[in-house]
């Protein structure tokens, strides 16, 4: 079983819009900004002001997303919440199916996670296996009081009983389609979410 991640694979569809096999832009740069703003508001609302909260991004694109959320929360409420990164490579269940992967950076904020509310941040929620791995990784790092999940895009096709607490956009997709998230920090200054590939 593959371990689908939005950032794997290379675009095969043409850029032409309208064609069934073409690329469709799901979120433009300004849409993406609004979606991040909304998630930041929802976090503040659902966690009563985000006290005792830590944002942990899952590399690669979860990390800049977590930073953006923290900076929006700072802009709205003037509070600084700790941001870190949690690499899940060593906890994957498909390591033996692929060539060895290079590790991402794990960076746990100084005060640790014990007794805090941890919000995992990732770009795309698909099979749920990445989140499963992240939960395993978390339990080795500390003991949060609760764990929540924020994703930019939920594209369905879950293989595990996992759901997100904060969803930027739900996109109904076919399995063969691919979702590509680009963020300015990691993708040459481009902010957008695209859907491409799939059957005609």
């Amino acid at each position: 079983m593959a371990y689908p991640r939005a950032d794997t694979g290379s675009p095969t569809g043409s850029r032409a819009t309208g064609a069934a096999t073409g690329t469709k832009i799901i979120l433009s740069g300004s849409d993406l900004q609004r979606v991040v703003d909304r998630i930041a508001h929802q976090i503040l609302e659902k966690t009563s002001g985000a006290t005792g909260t830590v944002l942990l991004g899952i590399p690669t694109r979860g990390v800049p997303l977590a930073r953006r959320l923290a900076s929006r929360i700072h802009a709205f409420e003037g509070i600084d919440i700790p941001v870190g990164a949690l690499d899940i490579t060593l906890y994957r269940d498909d390591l033996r199916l692929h060539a060895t992967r290079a590790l991402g950076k794990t960076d746990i904020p100084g005060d640790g996670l014990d007794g805090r509310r941890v919000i995992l941040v990732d770009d795309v929620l698909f099979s749920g296996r990445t989140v499963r791995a992240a939960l395993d990784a978390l339990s080795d790092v500390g003991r949060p009081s609760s764990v929540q999940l924020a994703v930019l895009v939920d594209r369905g096709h879950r293989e595990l009983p996992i759901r997100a607490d904060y969803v930027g956009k739900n996109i109904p997709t076919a399995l063969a389609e691919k979702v590509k998230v680009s963020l300015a920090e990691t993708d040459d200054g481009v902010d957008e979410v695209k859907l491409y590939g799939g059957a005609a």
Partner: protein
Amino acid sequence: MIKHLRSAADLDADTATLILDTAAEMAALAGREVKKLPTLRGRTVVNLFYEDSTRTRISFEAAAKRLSADVINFSAKGSSVSKGESLKDTALTLQAMGADAVVIRHPASGAPHRLASWVDGSVINAGDGTHEHPTQALLDAYTMRSRLGRIDGLKVAIVGDVLHSRVARSNVLLLTTLGAQVTLVGPPTLIPIDVAAALSPGTKVSYDLDSVLPATDVVMMLRVQTERMQDSYFPSAREYSRRYGLDAPRMRKLPEHAIVMHPGPMNRGMEIAPEVADSSRSTIVEQVANGVSARMAVLYLLLGGKA
């Protein structure tokens, strides 16, 4: 990724850097409450040790266990080797038991290369005769990078019994691959003729420690391996120590930022004075801790993916 780690020459600059980067992530584990990763669950690592070893064997064992691999320790003493079993027959036994990796230390140079042709799993050289000890070179490189921030352009002096030192050989190969400038220092009897040309052309040789020290970023002291010496290579231990031992006055000739390394075990008072070994410039204890991280990185990169 490569399949075996038999020589530091197996590693190009990109692969070596990947191992060091991975080791840096593994090092973060040491500060955690749960020092364990599920990554190599169900894999078997055999430690095949034909020579005595404290830190290398324990280090490999800790590294494999932190990655959740099953570890089988084999030492020649107390095994069928003392009944005359050959390396090949032992290898075939391990093969039949399904070892995913064999970590081998052997008194004969080249033993890991032979072993690799008999077993399906990965072979990791943990020291073969006077030939190589690649994971030691990796942990040394990692220590230099974490202390000094880089390896490229560093001036490294490797001092002492180069002739018998597998640590020196692996370090010269790896460090030059990573862009350091290595100088081998020692009495002429303990530096093989043409060693620099044979290992890597940019390497320098000097017989005068005092003239090398002022322009050195890293000084790596080697143990005088009396157990491998059948001839007298220097008149007396005292004379060796006078000319090539690192004592406090000599250490003061080093630049302010320079570090002192030793692969251990040390002969205190012979190649290194106790006050040097215990000084803040010494990385000797750090090297041991870094050894576990470097070996975890090697095990993960060799065994973690698709076989």
